[in-house]
């Protein structure tokens, strides 16, 4: 993995980018260390929706996925829709009405002319920014209206793992045999297979200090023993049955994950 300097990929906020399309890159630190390299940005992604980032793109960093990283294209939308203009006009009207109606304190009540003047300027900026923020949000949301909404990764995984959830119904725990499974993959697996509890056999890769992800009493060097269901994270699915004799593959869970259940079980 080759770190890519953030500066090379910085999007100019003045361009009001609403989406970016990248090639060969994975987001690594937008949401701290937990986001260790799994968010695939190979499709259009609204800037503000990348792992909860604001449009300032603060902390947005990427790493190479073994290919030459570059921005394929960036969607730029400098036009505002009518709701945006309505909101901005409303903000301006509110400032005007506030002046007339005394929405904000005036000199008569305070007497400090310089501070009050500064306060008025700041308040006007505040309200304008408030409505522009709202307007931009409406605008961003509006770009999605009328077009089919692309299914996000988690929704897709959740839908595709319905069969696995049905197969695991009635079980309380599933062992997770991992080989450096990324932490986000692990968390998503737990979410999509819940309410079955995933018990990791090995520590999860990239876990920050202090988060005990693998229960010490179940970390095992040998075969998983009595477990009747195991999730395997492997780059080579064909080797899974050989790794776990007595188990068969129940479902490919996507993301290099395979659900194995014991042959003797239902």
């Amino acid at each position, binding site marked *: 993995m080759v770190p890519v300097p953030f500066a090379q990929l910085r999007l100019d906020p003045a361009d009001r980018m609403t989406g970016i399309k990248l090639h060969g890159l994975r987001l690594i630190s937008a949401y701290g260390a937990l986001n260790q390299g799994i968010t695939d940005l190979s499709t259009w992604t609204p800037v503000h929706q990348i792992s909860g980032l604001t449009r300032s793109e603060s902390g947005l960093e990427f790493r190479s996925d073994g290919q030459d990283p570059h921005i394929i294209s960036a969607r730029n939308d400098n036009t505002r829709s009518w709701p945006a203009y309505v909101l901005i006009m409303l903000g301006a009207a509110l400032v005007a009405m506030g002046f007339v109606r005394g929405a904000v304190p005036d000199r008569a009540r305070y007497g400090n002319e310089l501070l009050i003047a500064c306060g008025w300027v700041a308040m006007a900026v505040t309200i304008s920014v408030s409505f522009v923020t709202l307007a931009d949000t409406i605008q961003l949301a509006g770009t999605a209206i009328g077009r089919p909404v692309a299914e996000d990764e988690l*929704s897709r995984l959740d839908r595709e793992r319905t069969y696995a959830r049905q197969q695991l119904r009635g079980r309380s725990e599933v062992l997770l045999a991992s080989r450096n499974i990324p932490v986000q993959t692990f968390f998503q697996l737990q979410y999509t297979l819940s309410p079955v509890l995933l018990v990791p056999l090995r520590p999860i890769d990239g876990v920050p200090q202090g988060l005990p992800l693998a229960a010490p009493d179940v970390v095992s060097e040998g075969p998983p023993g009595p477990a009747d269901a195991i999730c395997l994270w492997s780059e080579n699915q064909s080797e899974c049955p050989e790794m776990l004799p007595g188990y068969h593959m129940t479902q490919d869970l996507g993301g290099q994950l395979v659900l194995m259940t014991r042959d003797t079980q239902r």
Partner: protein
Amino acid sequence: MIITLYLMISLLLTAIMVQRYGDLAGLLLGVGLAISITSLGYFWTLVLGLDAPAVWLVLANGTALWLAHKTLSGGATSAPAPGIPAGALRCRLLLAFTIGLTTIALLTQSMASPHGGWDAWAIWNLRARFMADSGQIDQVFSTVYLWSHPDYPVLLPSLTAAFWELSGARSQTVPICIGLIAPTMTMLLIYHVFERVGYHWHGLVAAIVLASNDAFLVPLQYADQLLGLAFLATGAFITLARGQHRVVMLRAAGVALGAAMWTKNEGILFALAVLATAVLVAFVRRSLPEMSRAAIPVLQGAAPFLATLAWFKSRLAPDNDLFAGAGQGPSMLDKILTPERYELIGTAFTNQYVTLTPALMALSIFALAALTISPRRLTPVLAPALVLLMMHTGYFLVYLITPNDLEWHLATSLDRLVLQLWPGLLFILMLIVVCSADRRHPVESNPWFDDHKYPIPAGKPQNEH
């Protein structure tokens, strides 16, 4: 079918509150009560292993409706509900418009990300799935997945799971709709509290500024937004605890305080900060008996949450990761004596507030102007400001002794903590502006803010409109 019955009961409950306490206060009280009963009720059906939890929830809300009808409706002693203050109608229309647009923005964004932000699916919705489908209470709070913080209180997951039970489906629409409660109710509440004291334009500006926070407009489905609402509601209802509705408002403040504790562990810190502030104020003013009398209805409101939380923490919740991992790495004393940690935390806090929004700047300038003219008139603001200061200090100390990697901990949590405090901070700043602007000193007493010389304003003089 059963959800229709539930919603009808909740609507009737809200209607009774509206009839008695006015439209906005009634709406806030009714919704808050329904949320509290539903969350606590679902949790106890799970603990007691009761079949058909949806039926029990309907019964619990039905009982609340019956009690509210019996005690609040009619009667010669009942006071008329406050009407819409003069001149407030236009503000309300603008507020409704702004809340409507905010709701549309949140809903349309939710379509692209229906499972919410990271914490929503890794903690809150995950817990809700366990609660709704596991059937084993021990498994819901298992230590196997300590990474998902099973020690956190469960107001939000209980609410989500309850509505899944009531609707009979595990639709993602439920957490999306619940995620709308906090932003809309927070805007409504911060407007209402200023409208009630005659400053509706200030309330409207506060609501709009509140929504100017980028994080506020992201459909995260986090408990932090609900916690921010609970913090604000506690302060707001105490502020409104005057006159005929004093006891009811104090009970409502107690419910909000309890809900904060039942939402996240930070709510417990908040309760301690409120308690410490109340004791300090009583000590300084030598008004311990009065404060004790005011504390009784607050405790009554918080009692169901306190009892549930005590049971949850003693019987179900595993140790918090901050304390479970206390033995790892450097000792607590070493951390406290490391200057670099102070610098790192201080810088992170500063950056968080600097980038938060320019809105603070305007209100801070007005607050500064107010201080230069009449600092003594700001007495009503001191207590809530002290609570806010204690919260910041508490968060700072937690970061100082955290067993986790400090930079990682700050990067993954500080923005959410500030989001919790954001409505309360705005409330305090606008309260400074309002208190400074009002020259009248009505003698109605307020349980903790004021004395008879410097109470919060009861309303703007008519000649100023």
